[in-house]
């Protein structure tokens, strides 16, 4: 099992892949070469469209037939050229010597087949194991990846497992045949940060145990720093830089790599500052209380045939906080924690079961439909997916002008002028007004959303994961814009995010949510530097650190049964924790 120490396990040379034919030919990967040595983890890093996934899929013959063409290249593995094997020969390698795990654990398992069958079929196929031998191995692997009660798991169907558990099953499946190479394509991107940390720990552990080489495809520099031995940086289908992880992080050669690293938010980078990063000369400071909420609760009920059913899931329970003018309160938490629900509730985009929302002293919940619409002039929203949040059938100019039209703020020439001003204000050109959303890039679209939100001079903007759909380099620019607007216009932000590093950069105060409740709330430096709630600590500990020299501590195990979830009590000025 141990090859020549010097000879690479896998050697890719001059790989060129294109999509489409003739006029529509589009080169996705150009002249890519790299080596993978035994026992090492090679990270292939790049932003979307860099060709990092395509090049790895090509190795196993998994590119969509007909659509993609491997135009040139070699990939030596086990003395054979993977790119020139017949489908049947390749099939013998796939799932046995080279295995894969994918980004989407929710959809990567066949929904109609039991876990056991999916786990064992490759073993039966490649290793010629009997059913019972394969099942024994399957149970062993399930235990190894940290799933309890393996015999029961074997009988379950994918939908009965959570995302993290499914990704563990995928890993068990990939490792069961003791492969030489594991191709991991964004294995943690779809997972919550605490689950991501567990999965990364698991992969490291298994790698050490089995001596497997890993090709890790990711866009997340934190993951790279944590996992990789060597790094290949790709951009627009080409390899632009390669080196050990230390070299890449400490002495990047290419401007692009440098920019990539610079744009990555690092948790702790602003730990010392009392205020968010200052981007204008004389920033406005948080002022009087603008928003007051308390006791907000909301339960989503499943719809029955005619009436709503009893029960349902509580998305928000007894949530309350204040927000001052010119202040940013960050709501952080993992998926399902209720942070988005809270944001929508504040804008009255959904009806609360109970609770109070006061804006400038007016109780939003008591307003009629028309009055609510008027009140919305004070509050605007920015969404996660900038493309989806822009009506594709309206021009950019109309989209930005729409709130002003709705609220009757301007018309005719004046409307035109103010729209133009807004475009320039967010860094777009005025003649972009005639374009339609699909003609803009992701970052530009988010600027459009911001311009639209600004058009009615709101006092509060609810920003729901405003940068998480963007590539890191773009993310930084948008954050910069948001900070600048706050500091010059005195806007208040309710900033919803799962990314602790981003929160650290922009927030005055932080509220941590878990299962519909705020478990800790307080000034940013207090919550992030001195977390009191066990969950906050776990959340912070799980954040990958984009620095290969620093090792993330092992994740504290959360005992969910004893986690305090009661009312908030003040433990330091303005710093409150669930008891």
């Amino acid at each position: 099992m141990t090859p020549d120490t010097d000879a690479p396990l896998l050697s890719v040379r001059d790989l060129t892949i294109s999509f489409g034919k003739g006029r529509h030919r589009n080169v996705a990967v150009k002249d890519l070469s790299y080596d993978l040595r035994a026992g090492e983890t090679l990270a292939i890093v790049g932003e979307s469209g860099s060709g990092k996934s395509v090049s790895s899929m090509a190795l196993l013959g998994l590119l969509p037939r007909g659509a993609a063409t491997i135009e040139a290249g070699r990939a030596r593995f086990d003395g054979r050229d993977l790119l020139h094997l017949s489908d049947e020969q390749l099939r013998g390698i796939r799932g046995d010597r080279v295995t894969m795990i994918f980004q989407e654990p929710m959809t990567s398992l066949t929904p109609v087949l039991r876990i056991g069958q999916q786990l064992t079929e490759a073993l039966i196929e490649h290793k010629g194991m009997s059913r019972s031998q394969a099942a024994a191995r399957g149970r062993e692997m399930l235990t190894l990846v940290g799933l309890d009660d393996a015999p029961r798991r074997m009988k379950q169907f994918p939908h009965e497992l959570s995302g993290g558990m499914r990704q563990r099953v995928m890993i068990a499946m990939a490792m069961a045949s003791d492969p030489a190479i594991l191709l991991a394509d964004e294995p943690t991107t779809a997972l919550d940060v605490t689950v991501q940390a567990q999965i990364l720990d698991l992969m490291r552990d298994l790698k050490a145990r089995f001596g497997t080489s890993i090709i890790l495809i990711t866009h997340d520099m934190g993951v790279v720093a944590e996992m990789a031995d060597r790094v290949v940086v790709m951009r627009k289908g080409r390899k632009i830089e390669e080196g050990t992880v230390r070299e890449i992080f400490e002495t990047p050669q290419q401007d692009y790599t440098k920019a990539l690293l610079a744009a990555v938010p690092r948790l702790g980078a602003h730990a010392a500052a009392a205020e968010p990063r200052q981007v204008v000369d004389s920033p406005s400071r948080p002022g009087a209380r603008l928003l007051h909420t308390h006791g907000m609760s909301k339960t989503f009920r499943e719809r029955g045939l005619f009436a709503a059913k009893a029960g349902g899931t509580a998305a928000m329970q007894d949530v309350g906080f204040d927000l001052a003018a010119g202040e940013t309160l960050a709501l952080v938490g993992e998926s399902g924690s209720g942070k988005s629900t809270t944001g929508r509730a504040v804008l009255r985009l959904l009806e609360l079961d109970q609770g109070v929302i006061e804006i400038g002293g007016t109780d939003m919940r008591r307003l009629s439909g028309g009055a609510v619409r008027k009140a919305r002039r004070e509050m605007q929203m920015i969404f996660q997916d900038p493309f989806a949040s822009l009506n594709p059938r309206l021009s950019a100019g109309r989209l930005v002008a729409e709130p002003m039209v709705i609220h009757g703020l301007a018309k005719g020439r004046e409307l035109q002028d103010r729209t133009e001003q807004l475009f320039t204000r967010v860094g777009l050109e005025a003649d972009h007004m005639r374009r339609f959303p699909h003609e803009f890039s992701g970052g530009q679209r988010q600027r459009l959303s911001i311009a639209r939100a600004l058009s009615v001079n709101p006092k509060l903007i609810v920003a729901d994961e405003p940068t998480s759909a963007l590539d890191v380099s773009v993310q930084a620019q948008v954050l910069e814009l948001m900070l600048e607007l706050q500091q010059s216009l005195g806007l208040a932000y309710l900033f919803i995010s799962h990314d602790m590093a981003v929160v650290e950069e922009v927030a005055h105060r932080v509220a941590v949510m878990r299962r519909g409740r705020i478990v800790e709330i307080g000034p940013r430096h207090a919550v992030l530097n001195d977390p009191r709630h066990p969950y906050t600590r776990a959340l912070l500990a799980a954040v990958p650190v984009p620095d290969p020299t620093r090792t993330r501590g092992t994740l504290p195990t959360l005992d969910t049964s004893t986690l305090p979830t009661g009312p908030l009590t003040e433990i330091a000025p303005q710093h409150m924790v669930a008891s």
Partner: protein
Amino acid sequence: MIHSSSTAELADDLATASAPRKRSFWRALLAGPSGLIGLVIVAVLIFAALTAPVIAPYDPLRMAAGPRLDAPSTNYLMGTDDFGRDVLSRIIYGARLTLQIGVIAVGISLSCGLLLGLVAGYSSGWTERVLMRLVDVLFSFTEIVIALACLAIFGVGLTNAMIAIGIASIPFYARVTHSVVLVEKGKPYFEAAVAAGAGHLRLIFLHLLPNVVPTLIVIGTLGVSTAILAAAGLSFLGLGAQPPQPEWGFMLSSSRDLISRAPWMMIFPGLAIATTVLGFNLLGDGIREALDPRQTDR
């Protein structure tokens, strides 16, 4: 209600709402074989309907325009029927009825279905549940049974058949509209508009409708073919067109006693229906592909 000052603005917005894709749409439509063939067939049908008096070689109603049951020949390209009427001329004039059926039936079902689906989808809550439950139930009755019920009420005849088919398809259009509205309503741009303070009318007509319309154009085009088939079926059963209307389904029906004696009376009207329906089906598929770039690679 929205302020009166913004009504004009809204109309202006509406006008531009569907503008962006126009040029590329036609190119995309004609690029695929479905769209092109479909468009050609439909164009031929419309042409035949408009110019029937000019291009039809004989009066479609005149008996003994030729010999009875004469096989296709250079004089009578599709032969004659048992009254000595020219089958080709009847088919050409039949195109008028066919188009009329398509337009009226789809007009009824599309407008009512759109309204129902929009109201149900936009309102949510009880209104939605009750409406859609009812629509679902009606839908499961199938169109032909609803059409039969309508005809049992109104009595038979081609006009009644058109109306019956129109009514019978309302549940289908309501369902499609409703599901599209739900999808659109779930998209962030809709929530963004709500968050911006848009009123009901603005939300429905500026944000939902333009995004629902493309789907409905596709469904409506495909619906024309369904309506034509259904009307031909009803006429075939004796519930639709009445003599001497040169309706294709009715022509087929009157050919039944003569299929061994004069098979052309059965073959050509059937071919006319099948081709027309195919034309609208292809056109619908073509429009769908043209509107949805995601589908073009299929």
